[in-house]
């Protein structure tokens, strides 16, 4: 059975304030120099390694786990997955 790496990225929905991202932007990046950076949003990444028949199935397995165990809170967060050959 092949293995796949599945990265799960959890970030607050756009309407939820992100004080960590704001602090990084306002108190670090914007304080030091002129920059084209306009926005920073923080996120959490979980890296899974999964055995599955194919990449699509590996992503499906991880997404089902995310929903079953509330890995992300659907009220405030959105989740995206990216997968690669292990």
């Amino acid at each position: 059975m092949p293995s796949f790496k599945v990265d799960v990225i959890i970030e607050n929905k756009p309407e939820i304030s992100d004080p960590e991202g704001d602090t990084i932007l306002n108190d670090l990046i914007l304080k030091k120099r002129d920059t084209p950076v306009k926005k920073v949003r923080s996120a959490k990444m979980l890296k899974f390694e999964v055995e599955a028949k194919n990449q699509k199935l590996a992503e499906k397995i991880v997404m089902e786990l995310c929903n079953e165990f509330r890995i992300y809170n659907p009220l405030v967060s959105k989740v995206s997955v990216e997968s690669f050959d292990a």
Partner: protein
Amino acid sequence: MKVAVVVFPGSNCDRDMHYVFSDVFKLKTELVWHTDELPKNIDAIVLPGGFSYGDRLRAGVIAAHSPVISEIKKMAEKRMPILGVCNGFQILVEAGLLPGALLKNTSLTFMCKWTEIIVKNNKTPFTNKLKLNQRIPIAIANGEGRYYADKETLKLLKKNNQIVFTYAEEVNGASLDIAGICNKQRNVVGMMPHPERSAESIINPKNSKPASLIFESLLNTLGVA
């Protein structure tokens, strides 16, 4: 009459909660490990504060999958009084027993200080001895205590009178300054501030009586006041 205080790995207010119920308010109280069954003869359940599972992933989310939670859900359906304080509130939310979410404070810091909350619903098992709009000097101590709910949920909370406590001052960016809520049936209450750290004059530099009424309300509910 007996209260169960549920202990998770990382709970750190369980002994304080047990002490207040048993020694201050003379109620039989039992600490229950989260993998054990709830005792048969309990009349109320308390989920204390702390850092269950080190707040890994998100405060309260891993404890919300503990074996005891399914039993607590059954007791909630039977209208048993259930109180979650701080991490206990976070666990109740993550378990789906209360709506909304608890996010990092806008300050991004762990806050530990005295504040005041205002009673907005005095018809719960934990507030029935308090007056509406009564102020409670109380300790808060949390890093992820900013209550959040979307507009629709906030509308429902207001409509169903589920907002139990609000902060008298802006402390952490919480929606509508919410410090505590209840479920629609009003038997499940969650609050971020710590009544167990505030209910005795020796540890409350302001006024311990209002916080003590949270415990006396439960005694009243259970018919032992």
